[in-house]
């Protein structure tokens, strides 16, 4: 059918990015731009008794200092419908509306000045006195409360059961393991810090904002400021990494807009690296119990998985932690439970592979423990429990090539060279370990709209208010459009990141290609029909196209599409799958772990662009490597603060940490999910990596670490 879809085309926006022509939110510079800095709470619970900004107001270059004492009271209208990116219940922080302190690092003031340095200095001059209250800054699992009805509606309820009595079956099982797994609070640390530039001009508000969803920023401003939707425009053509941290519209966006209206000039508010740890979200600290019971042949009889995550005191952030356990394997008796511990912290938010990466870490390490106990190859154990249909709601899969992933992945990785005993493989002094894990993630499709416009120069511009935080939306959508139109790539331009464009849902949850792709295709088909009707059937390719357009009396021809999924999501279980393999070298004296190889075999349906898809996957592998070995907030339970809130102490992998990365896509397509045959890939990329590495560490050392990250201190005590 096509030549461009399926081709490893380089990013169409690559040249702009590497030459600095790509403009990110903080780089927009409207005339008269001023700069803002946030004043933050240094206590974690209580209220402000006294706030004195006189010194700050007198500091050089300061235009205004806003605190709850003088900030405008904003409408903050209730939601008509809560956006999908918001926590399941609770009420978002109402910034500068009262004196209450909910967490350390909470924005309690904003300073606007002529320069960034002036604003930051003045912010440090604001004097605050507090009345502290008892704060909940310790993750105490006894305080865990079952998730709410609202969470249950999203499939994140407090309890789910499959089959019979899982606890009884576990009790009766011939072989069993019962483990406690800890995944720490993790931060996205995208390269580009969050930034907002806000400008009010003649009653019109323009916002350049780092976001994965321009339409939602507009809707939030409409709701918070009580202004009309057509008076707000949100623009964001490029995102320097987000990983879920830019799905919500965070309080600093409101602060920038409020401050800009106050000073009557455009305002830029860029968060510092340290502020990102408090003013945006994070992957919540989550502790899990996994109990697996099996027959001697490896067939699962019982699977119990209980998760306790953290949330804030003011919002309920429940994620899909227990979705992977519900679908990955066939098991006769299964029970999951989900509780949350409210704490004085900012609210968590989705971080790449949200919920699934967390649930899979515990589940896949537990499966490895069970395989060891059964003296069964870890892949065999998984194959033996392969789910022919989705165990959740007992639905057929829209597609599932997981068995191919095990076979092809194992072959590529050389799994047969693994000797089963731990500590049985060496390379010189180093202990060598091989481990694997299954990855699953939901593959949803959302409604989306797009337009396609034939310009007078013969170029077709295709637009949708989606985003490109790195996966390559620009490129993939250009490929889909060019193929549909039958045009070469240079004659097609895809534009995104503007709330005046046709509507799109959030750029997250691995939905973009499956959702925007069909809209783009339909808009292009509609355009072809329109051109054919107006100018004749092959006008698009005629040498006299320009004349034809002119003689038709218009400068352009435009078509529009609204695309949406059918009811297939209720009749099929739609998931992407993967199998991750990792090889580690562990120093037997120091407990330092280096990952020499990661190999992943993925079933993500049809691959629009193998080069970009590979980038997605190796990015996920590197993120997963960080999760396994390096990442974790050092939370101080007394201060309610992150002691390593900077990139020198919150470690992410550097190039030297990364060995050979191998990506293979097993052939397949999923026409039930999307007419393009694609399934989601982005979230999947991070899933399964951390448990594969953890299992490899066990194989290398015989030490089972159930708490991430696997740092030398956790190994050396046993070595």
């Amino acid at each position: 059918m096509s030549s461009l879809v399926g081709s490893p085309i380089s990013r169409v926006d690559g040249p702009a990015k590497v030459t600095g022509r790509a403009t990110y939110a903080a780089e927009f510079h409207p005339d008269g731009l001023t700069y803002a800095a946030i004043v933050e709470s240094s206590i974690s619970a209580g209220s402000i008794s006294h706030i004195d900004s006189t010194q700050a107001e007198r500091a050089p270059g300061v235009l205004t200092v806003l605190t709850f004492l003088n900030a405008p009271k904003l409408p903050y209208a209730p939601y008509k419908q809560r956006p999908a990116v918001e926590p399941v219940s609770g009420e978002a922080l109402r910034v500068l509306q009262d004196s209450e302190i909910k967490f350390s690092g909470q924005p309690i003031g904003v300073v606007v000045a002529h320069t960034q340095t002036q604003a930051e200095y003045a912010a440090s001059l604001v004097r605050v006195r507090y009345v502290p209250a008892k704060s909940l800054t310790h993750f105490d699992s006894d305080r865990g409360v079952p998730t709410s009805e609202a969470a249950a509606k999203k499939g994140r309820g407090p309890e789910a059961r499959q089959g019979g009595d899982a606890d009884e079956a576990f009790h009766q099982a011939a072989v069993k393991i019962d483990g406690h797994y800890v995944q720490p609070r993790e931060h996205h640390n995208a390269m580009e810090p969050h930034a907002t530039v806000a400008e009010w001009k003649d009653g019109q508000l323009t916002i350049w904002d780092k976001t994965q969803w321009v339409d939602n920023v507009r809707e939030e401003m409409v709701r918070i400021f009580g202004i009309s939707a057509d008076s707000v425009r949100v623009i964001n053509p490029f995102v320097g990494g987000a990983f879920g941290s830019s799905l919500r519209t965070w309080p600093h966006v409101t602060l920038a807009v409020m401050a800009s209206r106050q000073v009557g000039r455009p305002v830029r508010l860029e968060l510092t690296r340290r502020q990102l740890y408090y003013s945006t979200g994070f992957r919540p600290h989550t502790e899990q119990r996994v109990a697996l019971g099996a027959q001697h042949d490896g067939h699962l009889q019982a699977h119990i998985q209980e998760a306790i995550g953290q949330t804030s005191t003011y919002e309920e952030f429940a994620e899909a932690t227990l979705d992977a356990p519900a679908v990955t394997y066939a098991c006769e008796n299964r029970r999951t439970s989900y509780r949350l511990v409210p704490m004085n912290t900012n609210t968590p938010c989705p971080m790449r592979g949200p919920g699934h990466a967390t649930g899979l870490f515990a589940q896949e390490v537990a499966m490895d423990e069970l395989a060891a106990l059964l003296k069964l190859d870890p892949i065999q154990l998984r194959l033996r429990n392969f789910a022919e249909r989705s165990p959740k709601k007992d639905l057929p899969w829209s597609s599932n090539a997981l068995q191919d992933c095990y076979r092809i992945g194992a072959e590529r990785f050389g799994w047969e060279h693994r000797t089963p005993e731990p500590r049985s493989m060496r390379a010189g002094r180093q202990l060598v370990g091989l481990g694997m894990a299954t990855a699953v993630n939901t593959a949803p499709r959302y409604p989306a709209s797009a337009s396609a416009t034939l310009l007078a120069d013969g170029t077709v511009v295709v637009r949708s208010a989606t985003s490109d935080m790195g996966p390559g939306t620009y490129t993939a959508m250009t490929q889909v459009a060019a193929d549909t139109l039958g045009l070469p790539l240079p004659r097609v331009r895809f534009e995104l990141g503007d709330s005046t464009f046709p509507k799109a849902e959030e750029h997250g949850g691995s939905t973009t290609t499956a959702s925007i792709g069909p809209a783009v295709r339909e808009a292009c088909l509609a355009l072809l029909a329109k051109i054919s009707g107006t100018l004749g059937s092959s006008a698009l390719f005629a040498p006299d196209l320009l004349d034809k357009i002119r003689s038709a009396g218009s400068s352009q021809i435009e078509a529009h599409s609204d695309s949406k999924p059918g009811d297939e999501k209720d009749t099929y279980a739609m998931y992407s799958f993967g199998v991750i393999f990792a090889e580690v070298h562990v120093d037997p004296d120091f407990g330092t772990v280096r990952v020499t190889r990661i190999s992943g075999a993925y079933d993500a349906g049809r691959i629009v662009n193998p080069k970009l898809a590979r980038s997605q996957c190796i990015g996920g592998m590197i993120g997963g490597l960080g999760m396994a070995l390096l990442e974790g907030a050092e939370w101080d339970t007394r201060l309610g603060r992150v002691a390593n809130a900077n990139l020198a102490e919150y470690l992410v992998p550097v190039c030297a940490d990364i060995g050979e990365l191998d990506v293979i896509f097993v052939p397949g397509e999923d026409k039930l999910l999307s007419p393009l045959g694609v399934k989601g890939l982005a979230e999947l990329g991070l899933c399964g990596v951390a448990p594969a590495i953890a299992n490899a560490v066990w194989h290398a050392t015989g030490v089972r670490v159930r708490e991430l990250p696997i740092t030398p201190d956790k190994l050396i005590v046993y070595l």
Partner: protein
Amino acid sequence: MVPFTYARSSSVASAVQTGALHISSQSEEPGTAFFAGGTDMVQLMREQVLNPSHVVDVSALPGISDIVAGPAGATLGALVRMSDAAEHPGVREHYPVIAEALLASASPQVRNLATVGGNLLQRTRCGYFRDVASPCNKRQPGSGCPAINGQNRLHAVLGTSEHCIATYAGDLANALLVLDAKIRIAGSRGERQIALRDLHKQPHDTPHLETQLAPGELILAIEIPSGAAARKSHYLKVRDRATFEWSIASVAVALDLDSFGVVRDVRLAVGGVATTPWRLPEVEEALHGHVLDSGLCRHAAELATRNAVSHGKNVYKIKLIQRAIVRALEETGGLA
């Protein structure tokens, strides 16, 4: 950043005079800070951890950016870039521990900018020190030390006090310590020379006072004697991440064995585990005069942590540093 005055000095004399001037005119802290590479100092100033009233830029001072390194000794001017020292053939041949320590520090970009003089004064990476919203006795004397019962996985087990357990984070100083280096210092009253081992102070009850440098004093050069042990020297660094990361344990060794494998001269220092660059005389003594073998190395290494005090999350460092000492000795002595 808190506003400050900025002046660029063109001579050592004027730099130390400017420094002294501001001390006398403004006796309150923080006074004058000298600025050279600025790789860490700018970050600390931006976060208001350091708030000097005056910044004297010494990066263009003449005469203190040369490297002389050969079999008869070495001098590193204070303004020598870390990368230049690491790559200097004389340093690599006669003082390999220096080159290895430098190459294990920071990243190439940072090493291209940072100076060896500034690196000796590397501030701690303690997360509480660097977060002005947290108490810290080093940053704000008397405010308390949350690390002692808090997030202290990276903190020191040697040389701590009940007021501070922050780790000295640098590498170069540990290497120089085993070479018995001296530093030349200029002040308003003239020049003086001190042993590097006397430069850093343990925290005791004044953790905010980190060195013997008087206010306004400027390091001019590092003087390094040569010797057989210096030629056979080595730096081992253990860290969470493969590179661009501070150590959780590091060992500097200078070793001279006779033809029977008997230890004629040995110097050992450890990093990442102590509040200052930390020499281990008791370990050296246990090795001296004996045939170097694995058993001896292990025995000696145990002596290193006899007085170690851990605070919870950093207890692993006691075992780790012992093993790092053994590995470093074995590698240097040809046993590994």
